[in-house]
């Protein structure tokens, strides 16, 4: 069973300095409960959850405070018991520096759990299990925060060849998965066993970069005692980004999952080891996801991993580690892919695997960007086998169509290209810019299509009204038909017999009715208001309030 696993390789990649040592000396500590928790409602990919509480409500630890909005979404929970002091816009742990709806909880210090019951997933239908996980707020902890219940679906065949657990942790500084594997290997493996069962996977491969011998040893020890022999720990060569899901799948199985396709269609699925642990907690203990392990590293006196409640301010967390005086920024994530936070007063969320404290000395401002000399270094480093300079060339000039032709959306934003570029071009920034522009254009295009439909509809309506008027006029006058025809001819294009005209008007009216039903917004702007319209106006009022609300912080930070 433990035959030597054949390893494959992916192209590109880089070997930056790892800086992992300092945060692994001490075991995981539990970060103290802060005086105020700010829990953003929107913490995962998908629709923003709807708030279930309002200011003044009391909540228990693990109580659901935000309900998943549809299936592609995930619930959020109170990290401790206390009182909701506000549901309001708060600064998000997001580079934009914008705010979003958060539930602000003042802990009561009792740390009182809601009722917890293990979930018997074997007895439940797969759909029920997935709904349970969605409501338990389990999302991927490897960084992408994709709702895990959606990934726990074996796909077309109903079973998988390989479940990959991602313990590579290839980014410098981050060690949260490392210490998790060291300290909680057995529970992690139980989670893995649950996932294997749910996915009907024939085997589980846990890929760990070979610079983490302790974690490998711990997992091997734990799996030795385990009856589930399908779980295998594999050391993979240390090379960033070996932890990228596609890269790790490639290394472990030789399969390359193309962009835009589901890995389950290739018989593999990949989860972060932390996710496996979270699934264990949710299923076996009935605990929703309310905390995670976060590495605090970088420009601090004592780097360390903490178990942190979501909603804890990063400032409080960093303060535990004796930040050095020249600290000038806080980064969520690692140095290769992390995001600079607008302030250190943003909450830790499910995506926070690391709070990296930075300074000019540690992460100096790169020298000015020079023009790309097409040296091809970036292409050599790109793990997705892209031509980064071509994507850059066209993104820079805002020729997004071309950038897409060079597979912009295959880029995993790993940062290898920018890392090696002799011209110090912030390549990834250009890709992020291009991607978000392309998305925005799609939205704009939809809006334009909507406007076109509505405009055409209005023209049709005006046309019909004109015709109706003409018909009335015709009916009134003695000359009747002749004049009506003349009036119609004026209103419409030439040469239509009155018969056709009438038919046309009928069709138009029918069309309009159908359209009006479809739109559900009744743009009949005459006569008295229907209940529907009243409701519409109320809804609009609410939206307006929201817009104004959103506008305020934005205007503030604009300059």
């Amino acid at each position, binding site marked *: 069973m433990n035959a030597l696993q054949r390893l494959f390789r992916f192209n590109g990649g880089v070997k930056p300095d790892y800086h992992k040592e300092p945060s692994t000396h001490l075991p995981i500590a539990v970060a103290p409960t802060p005086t105020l928790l700010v829990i953003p409602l929107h913490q995962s990919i998908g629709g923003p959850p709807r708030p279930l509480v309002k200011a003044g409500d009391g909540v228990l630890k693990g109580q659901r405070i935000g309900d998943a909005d549809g299936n592609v979404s995930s619930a959020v929970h109170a990290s401790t018991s206390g009182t909701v002091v506000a549901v309001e816009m708060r600064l998000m742990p997001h580079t934009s520096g914008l705010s979003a709806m958060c539930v602000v909880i003042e802990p009561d210090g009792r740390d009182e759990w809601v009722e917890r019951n293990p979930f018997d997933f074997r007895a439940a239908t797969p759909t029920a299990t997935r709904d349970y996980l969605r409501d338990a707020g389990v999302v991927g902890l490897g960084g992408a925060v994709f709702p895990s219940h959606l990934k726990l679906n074996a796909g077309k065949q109903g079973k998988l060849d390989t479940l990959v657990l991602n313990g590579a942790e290839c980014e410098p500084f981050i060690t949260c998965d490392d210490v998790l594997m060291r300290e909680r290997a057995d529970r992690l493996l139980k989670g893995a066993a649950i996932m294997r069962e749910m996915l009907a996977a024939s085997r589980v491969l846990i890929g760990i970069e070979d610079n983490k011998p302790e974690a490998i040893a711990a997992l091997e020890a734990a799996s030795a005692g385990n009856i589930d022999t399908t779980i295998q720990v594999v050391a993979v060569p240390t090379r960033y980004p070996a932890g990228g899901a596609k890269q790790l799948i490639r290394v472990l199985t030789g399969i390359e999952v193309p962009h835009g396709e589901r890995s389950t269609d290739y018989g593999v699925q990949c989860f972060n080891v932390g996710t496996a642990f979270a699934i264990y907690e949710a299923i076996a203990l009935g605990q929703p996801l309310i905390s995670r392990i976060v590495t605090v590293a970088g420009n601090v006196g004592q780097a360390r991993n903490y178990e942190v409640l979501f909603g804890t301010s990063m400032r409080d967390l960093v303060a535990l580690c004796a930040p050095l005086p020249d600290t000038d920024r806080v980064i969520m994530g690692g140095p290769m892919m992390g995001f600079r936070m607008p302030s250190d007063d943003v909450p830790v969320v499910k995506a926070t695997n690391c709070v990296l404290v930075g300074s000019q000395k540690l992460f100096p401002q790169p020298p000015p960007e020079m*023009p790309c000399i097409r040296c091809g270094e970036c292409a050599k480093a790109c793990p997705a086998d892209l031509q980064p300079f071509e994507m850059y*060339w*066209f993104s*820079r*000039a805002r*020729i997004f169509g*071309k950038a897409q032709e060079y597979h912009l959306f295959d880029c995993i934003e790993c940062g290898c290209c920018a890392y090696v570029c002799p011209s110090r071009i912030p390549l990834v920034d250009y890709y992020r810019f291009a991607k978000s522009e392309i998305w925005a254009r799609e939205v704009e295009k939809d809006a334009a299509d909507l406007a076109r439909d509505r405009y055409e509809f209005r023209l049709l309506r005006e046309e019909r009204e004109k015709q109706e008027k003409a018909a009335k006029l015709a009916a009134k006058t003695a000359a009747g038909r002749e004049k009506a025809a003349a009036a119609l001819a004026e209103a419409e294009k030439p040469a239509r017999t009155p018969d056709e005209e009438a038919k046309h008007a009928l069709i138009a009216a029918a069309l309009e009715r159908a359209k009006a039903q479809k739109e559900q917004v009744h743009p009949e702007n005459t006569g008295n208001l229907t209940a529907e319209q009243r409701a519409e106006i109320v809804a609009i009022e609410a939206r307006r309030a929201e817009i104004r609300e959103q506008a305020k912080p934005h205007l503030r930070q604009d300059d």
Partner: protein
Amino acid sequence: MTSYLFIILGAVLVNNVVFVRILGLCPFMGVSKKLETALGMGAATTFVLTMACGASYIIDAWLLIPNQLEYLRTLSFIVTIAAIVQLTELVIQKTSPVLHQVLGIYLPLITTNCAVLGIPLLNVSLRHNFLESLLFGFGSAMGFTLALILFAGIRERLEAADVPVYFRGTAIGMITAGLMSLAFMGFAGLDKFK
């Protein structure tokens, strides 16, 4: 056999219509902004030019020369070409919508491509026979197509370059065409070795 090959190669490279004979520049500048359109234009031109060379040879050899009407050459050639272009367009438009999608919008532009008249006239002055005329027409059109797609390839890249603002677009296109014709001067002298 090899002499036919040389006619084609000579027309494509050594005496490239655009860079050496300086014919067909307007579509060369006008339809080279995108590779796709350049290919379409090239294909359309190749078809029409080959046809035009054949037709004009027949007119010249069967109608004009026997009747000593050489002075009607330009007139009859160009009218025939215009008609061929228009006919082709109409027929393609109806019979093959796909092909029309590809070539349609370029066909009318071909009438204003002076290579389409220039090459048949050159055929006469070079005393090509029927086959040679066809090959020469085909080769020249391939030369045109080559120039066009090469140019389009560069222009697509140039569009994203940080070209000084007054040079964007056509101006830098001209400079590029100049450098391309400079490069094609490297072929100078090769046609002596056929």
